[in-house]
């Protein structure tokens, strides 16, 4: 059962108690973003993080990082999870990204075209992957950013159940099926 079917069923069960507006809004893919005030990121930093996350995992036929609330997850990790030195390195890296982008393009990251932004991040990505392969202890900013984005996205309800598959429809184990017959998508994992 996918989300659409689930919602239809809920609507039926409640005998129309959910307003048609809400059901239609949800069915047509509209979801108001959860409202929250970031605790570590400033409003500007939050916008930057939201934009970068969406560039890593964009909206396609399924919602991307923004709608999945990845920046809120990143703010949580920066506030309650990472040691202070990692948090500080991340924030310094974010500031550095803005400075470098300014220097190169003469405008802020948020003002860049999406291809300028993507090219810029692709370079940071290669550096970060290099550092990861060299087992550098202090992962550079973009390494942290990408990791948090992927974790935040694929463990969100959107990422796990819409982009990937969360749980099989049957309650059996079958070990060798044609990929297409299993929906052609990866399992999100059991957690």
């Amino acid at each position, binding site marked *: 059962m996918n989300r659409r079917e689930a919602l239809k069923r809920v609507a039926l069960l409640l005998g129309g108690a959910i307003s048609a507006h809400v059901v239609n809004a949800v069915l047509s893919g509209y979801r108001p973003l959860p409202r929250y005030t970031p605790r570590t990121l400033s409003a500007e930093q939050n916008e930057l993080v939201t934009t970068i996350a969406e*560039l*890593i*995992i*964009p909206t*396609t036929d399924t919602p*991307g990082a923004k709608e999945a609330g990845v920046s809120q*997850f990143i703010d*949580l*990790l920066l506030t*309650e*999870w*990472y040691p202070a030195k990692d948090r500080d390195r991340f924030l310094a890296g974010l500031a550095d990204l803005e400075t470098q982008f300014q220097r190169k393009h003469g405008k802020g990251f948020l003002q860049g075209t999406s291809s300028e932004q*993507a090219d810029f*991040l*692709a370079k940071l*990505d*290669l550096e970060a*992957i290099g550092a*990861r*392969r060299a087992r550098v202890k202090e992962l550079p900013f973009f390494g942290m950013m*990408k*990791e948090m984005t*992927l*974790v*935040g996205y*694929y*463990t*969100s*309800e959107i*990422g*796990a*159940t819409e*982009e*990937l598959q*969360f*749980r*099989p429809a*049957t*309650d*059996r*184990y*079958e*070990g*060798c*099926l*044609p*990929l*297409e017959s*299993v929906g*052609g*998508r*990866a*399992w*999100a*994992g*059991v*957690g």
Partner: protein
Amino acid sequence: MNNFYLAQKKVYDAIVVGSGITGGWAAKELTERGLKTLMLERGRPVEHRTDYITEDMGDWEFKFRNRGDRRLFEAEYPKQSQCYAFGEATRHFFVNDKENPYTHDPDKPFTWIRGYHLGGRSLLWGRQCYRWSDLDFEANARDGFGVDWPIRYKDIAPWYDYVESFSGISGSVEGIPHLPDGKFLPPMEMNCAERHVKEHIEKAFPGRKLIIGRVAVLTVPHQGRERCHYCGPCHRGCSAGAYFSTLSSTLPAARATGKLTVRCNSIVHSIIYDEKKDRAAGVRVIDRETKETLEFYGKVIFLCASTLGSTQILLNSSTPRFPNGLANSSGVLGHYLMDHPYQAGATGEIHGYEDKYYSGNRPNGIYIPRFRNLDASSKNPNYLRGFGYQGGASREGWQRGIAMPGLGVEFKKQLRQPGQWVMWIGGWGEHLPRYENYVELDPVQKDQWGMPLLKIHCAWSDNENKMREDMAVSAAAMLEACGAKNINAFISENPPGLCIHEMGTARMGRDPKTSVLNAFNQCHDVPNVFVTDGAAMTSSACQNPSITYMALTARACDYAVKQMKRGKL
């Protein structure tokens, strides 16, 4: 006054200490044989189904997306969080290390993984079940490490049958002499890559076998329990009751007799020993919540508080006759602690099945039975005894994206697809019994309930280290024979304890001078005290031990009740 109290006191036929895998079995066997039994459990009550509070939760429903509260884990769960099954979804089934401390030599870490609650670690276990054979029961006699087991396979075989028939073990019949077949429910299925690896290993290495894991998970309805749904997160509890746990299986059976009393939050502090009668009279208990001291009396006492839990109680029960711990005239109580060396093996990519996938989360893997030191022709000159491999294949998930270059639409599209098939195999090895691996009571430090802390001294010897090298090398060689790519042999840092197969410290033996228990898990010195958990083990073999604990427990209960009926206890 004292006499009046004694005259009034209630005496149970039996007291069972602990409610984990062995305590559950003892309660079932004793009550079904008519004994009024009191089960004492130090932890909180857990209700089957209702208390599996995280069972159906998706990652997004956990505050840290099931990645865990790192700061809390570091501060309060530094040991438990080393266990693969520990996390945001299961923390409530592990002890808080800060509240339940123990000590060890600074340079000899020991990772003691515990679950203090009704059901104990039966809720957490990986459910792998492999019988031992005479290769294992004769090992000590053969090479002289440890003392000879007082039993052989024929003594325990009917009890394996018995506990397997009730628990429900799925597996395949293979006819391997040193890994005897059991009473199996239908086996689970292997996936494409595992079948590939099986075929190639068995061809390249005649005599080796790769079989599906033998696991205490129901593949068909059994004993009123539902079959497995292949959902996967078993460590959170299973409302279907599809895997064997105290709560799904033995406790309901024991309760059905009407003869069981369960008391949770009851920390058994020590055994009350009656010098005149030369018997145990009961146990002293500290109420976990009120810290009040209570006494309970029983004709026979079964210690099932887990390997180190039971030994801690015996060590803490000194009397003038037993100044170094109850039933310790031999002086070996606390000694010969073992675990299994593991976390050495190899991983590799299996190519050629890119268009294939699996459906369902199989709570089980594969097993490669021991192939070293079985006989002269399989002798490895570098170490004694041997190891078996567990493992499995799966396709990489989105996590691979973290170390993969790329971003944007194409990247997202790639991660929507499953990645490479990766096979891993890792060894579980035998740990030689050694006197110098032991536990004692800390002479100074006590916990908040006044129990002296356990002080653990344990380290791997050269034998285990050499064996771990072979685990990695042989695993890589087998994957190579399968044509695997990107083979990665690994040997991880792995302190003893982390395999959670801690065993020994109140071993069985033939001679009261060198062992604590006889062939029926009965204390040589105090015949109405039985120890039927892992403390009883005389050697460690390399198989996951719990099914053997179950068989020994059921066998000891049968024996104890027969002895009671004959007036011998």
